[in-house]
Each structure stands twice: as structure tokens, then as C-alpha cells.
């Protein structure tokens, strides 16, 4: 099963909440080892898809397999091979960063949970804050811890539901770097986002979910071809506020 070319495969997925249809026949496939970005506005049903693929929710009809396992008939196998970073950083605030990671390692029944935690704290720049309660962390640190918790055990597929919502630009870039590294080492990354730039930066394939269906699915180059050819215009390029912000911050840190 693991030699399957597709890490995620979805056909005809339908889901309604109390007769309000959210997904009306969703089809897509995600190649193993790639980064797949699901774009859509708020309420488009991105989180619903994530929940179905991570066995938290059952679809009304259609099929979904993750790592070759059907999400309905083999949920335990699916859970064994995935990890999820939900929309809101699901860290235990009363525990320290280190304790959070050790807890997840224990729940994944791994050997040497302490070493695993120490390694991840190091990689995510949380060593100094490791023994402080997560409640004292900044938004960016909390998100980093959240993602670190998802990387415990090196799952083959990781799901990131709007991983950078609410983060400042610096923290967002840090998260992007982590995601790229993950994908570079062979993990399949399924990510939802509202930010077009995020999809552009990261994804091998981008799909747009609209009115319950995938309306476009392809590489960035393919998506660009769907639109009229680029026109050449001369415009004075003003720095964006983000450029300004990052320049000032970098000057400060290098000064």
C-alpha cells in the first residue's frame, strides 16, 4: 500500500450539515512527498475536508483514502500515519513546551520521548522556553510548538489547517521554512490557506474549493495559463507594508 503514488485520494466527497450542503462532490489526489495547498474563502469547507481526511468527521458519501487506507473502514491505520495541526494551536497551556512534546511522543508510543522532545525544541528554537508553561508563549511560539507536536513521530502525511492565520510576517516565514523542510525530506504536506501568497510560495499543486467543489487544480504555472496572458505595464513599484516592516525589523536585529 505504501508504494501508492498518491498519499491522498478523494472521490465524490459529499457532506452536509443539517441539510446545508458544504461539500458537493469533491475530487482530488495528492502525490506522495508533495505540498498540496487547498485554497478557499472562509466557510468554503476546507476544514471539513481536513476533518474527514483526519478521521474526525464522517462524510455523507464518496471515498477518501490516506496512505492507501480508507478513512471510514481503516481509521486506526490512517491515524497511525498522519498528524494534524488544527486551525487553533491545540497545545496544552498548563504544561510546558517540553511536557507537551513528551506527552505526544508517549501517546504515539515512541521510545525515548525525552530525546525526541529535546530534538524538536532545538529545531524549533524553543529550547530557552522549553520549561515555561505554553500559556506564556507568544502566538508565533505557540504555533511553532503546535507544529512541532505534529512532527513527533515523523508521520508520512501532515495536515496543516491554516497554519499561519493570525501570525506576524516573521513567524509566518518561519512556518513556511519548516513546511518546506518537511516536504524536502519526503513528507506529504496537505495545507489549507486563505493566503494566495502562501500557496504560491509553498505548494507544488494548488486547488481552489468553491461552492462545495474543486473548481481549479494544478501547478502554479498551469493556474496562470488559465488567465489572460500577462501584459507589460510600467508601474512604479512601491514597497509593500510587509517589505517595510521586515526591512525595519532586520535593521534592528542586525544593528
Amino acid at each position: 500500500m505504501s508504494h501508492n503514488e498518491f498519499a491522498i485520494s478523494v472521490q465524490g466527497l459529499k457532506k452536509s450539515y443539517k441539510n446545508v450542503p458544504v461539500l458537493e462532490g469533491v475530487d482530488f489526489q495528492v502525490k506522495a512527498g508533495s505540498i498540496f495547498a487547498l485554497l478557499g474563502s472562509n466557510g468554503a469547507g476546507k476544514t471539513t475536508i481536513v476533518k474527514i481526511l483526519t478521521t474526525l468527521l464522517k462524510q455523507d458519501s464518496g471515498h477518501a483514502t490516506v496512505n492507501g487506507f480508507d478513512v471510514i473502514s481503516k481509521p486506526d491505520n490512517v491515524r497511525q500515519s498522519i498528524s494534524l495541526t488544527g486551525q487553533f494551536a491545540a497545545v496544552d497551556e498548563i504544561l510546558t513546551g517540553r511536557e507537551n512534546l513528551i506527552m505526544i511522543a508517549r501517546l504515539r508510543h515512541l521510545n525515548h520521548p525525552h530525546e525526541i522532545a529535546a530534538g524538536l525544541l532545538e529545531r524549533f528554537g524553543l529550547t530557552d522556553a522549553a520549561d515555561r508553561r505554553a500559556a506564556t508563549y507568544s502566538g508565533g511560539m505557540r504555533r511553532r510548538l503546535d507544529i512541532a507536536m505534529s512532527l513527533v513521530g515523523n508521520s508520512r502525511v501532515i495536515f496543516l489547517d491554516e497554519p499561519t492565520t493570525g501570525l506576524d510576517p516573521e513567524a509566518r516565514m518561519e512556518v513556511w521554512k519548516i513546511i518546506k523542510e518537511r516536504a524536502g525530506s519526503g513528507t506529504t504536506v496537505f495545507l489549507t490557506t486563505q493566503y494566495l501568497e502562501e500557496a504560491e510560495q509553498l505548494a507544488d499543486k494548488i486547488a481552489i474549493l468553491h461552492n462545495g467543489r474543486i473548481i481549479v487544480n494544478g501547478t502554479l504555472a498551469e493556474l496562470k495559463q488559465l488567465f489572460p496572458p500577462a501584459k507589460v505595464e510600467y508601474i512604479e513599484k512601491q514597497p509593500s507594508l510587509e517589505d517595510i516592516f521586515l526591512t525595519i525589523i532586520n535593521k534592528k536585529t542586525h544593528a
Partner: protein
Amino acid sequence: METIKNHFFMDTRVMLGRSMRHIFRSMDTIITVTIMPIAMMLLFVYVLGGAIQTGTPNYVNYLLPGILLIAVANSVGYVSFRLFTDVQRGIFERFNSMPVARSAALWGHVLTALVSNVMSLTVIVLVALIMGFRSPAGVLSWLAVAGILAMFTLVLTWIAAIAGLSAKTIDGASAIAYPIHFLPLISSAFVPTSSMPSGVRAFAENQPVTAFVEAIRALLSGQPVGNNIWVALSWSIGITVLAYILAMRAYKRRG
């Protein structure tokens, strides 16, 4: 291909360790749960006790069983509160997308309630001893009392779990505590039921808390326990099984 094993006991241990840390880091819950019943005990013995005719020379001997049950009832609101927070913060979602034994997260909370009640009940008994409580009960009787209190805790925490898992607001989650607080008041915990008007008396004599109170009282005063312990036991098993099923259903729906 991975083999999927059930790690129920190990997972529950990790969950218990987690919520015990919560308790030790916010001792206020234990203090609240301990001090309130002690204050009630002082109030009833030294303010109201003089006017209460129980037929026993030492009112604190009569009162202690009810106070112990009230302490257990007080702890219930915190169980709902902790469960509700776990649902709200997405922690349960994280656990449910992992290969963790399904009910381990709930059992973690229930066992934590047991352990924290052991601590607060011990303190209450010590204060009662200072206030002149004396018991001819031997080790076996005390063990039986501990068993009855543990059963009472199990019954109430599973009821509290339903509220914590299905509530939509934090107030709703804690509301379950109010009716539970009331039951010991309308029982033989403070005054003999024979002093009550017939309607109230019928309720007081046939509701489960009275059976618990009477069983504990008989054990502590070295009297024959009679039927009460069996009545208490059947109530406990019946309600626990029902509440467990409902709580698990609420948990799966939430997951």
C-alpha cells in the same frame, strides 16, 4: 504495514499524568473543593447543630458522611470545566486524530477526579477528627467507606463528562453542578428524614444520596449496613453505565 495495537492503559496513564499536573498547578480547585465543605461542617456543627435533633450525642459524627458526599459533589463542576476546555482548545481533536485509545482521554479526567477527591476527603476527615469526630470503624469499614466514595465520584464524574462534552458555553458546562449540589441537602445528610413533611420525606428517602449517606454513616458508627449499601451500589452501577454510554456518545460526536 503497521500493526494497530490498543494501548488503553498506557494512554490513560499519560492522560492521568497530564491532568494531575493541571491540578497541582492550580491547587485552587482542590482548595475550593476542600474548604467549602469544611466551612459547611463548621457552620452546621457550631452554629446550627445545637438546634438539630439527630438522636446522636455527637452531631459531627452524624454530619460527616454528608459532608464527604458534598465535597465529592463540589468537585464535579471542575470535571465538566476541564473537559469543556479540552474540547474548546482543540486538544481532543488532536488526540482523536492520533492513534490513541478512544476513551483514554475521558478516563484520564475521571481518574484525576478520583485522585483529587482522595486528597480533599483526607483533609476533611482530619478536620472532623479535630472537631471531635470519633469512629469505632475498623480498617475494613474504612475501606468500604472509601469504596463507596469512589463509586459516588465515578457516578458524578461520568454525569459531569456528559455536560462538559455537550455544552456550548462554559456556563452550560458548569451548570450541571447545581442540581448535584442540591441532592445532598434533600437527604438524610444533615437531619433525619423523619423530621421532614411527607412529600419531601418520600423524595429524600428514595433518592440515591440518602442510600450513600446511610451506608457510610452505618459503616463509620459500627452499625449493621443493611440494604443501603446494595441500594447505593445498584444506583451507582445503573447511573454510571448510562452516563458512560451517553458521555462516550457525546465524545464521539464532538470528535
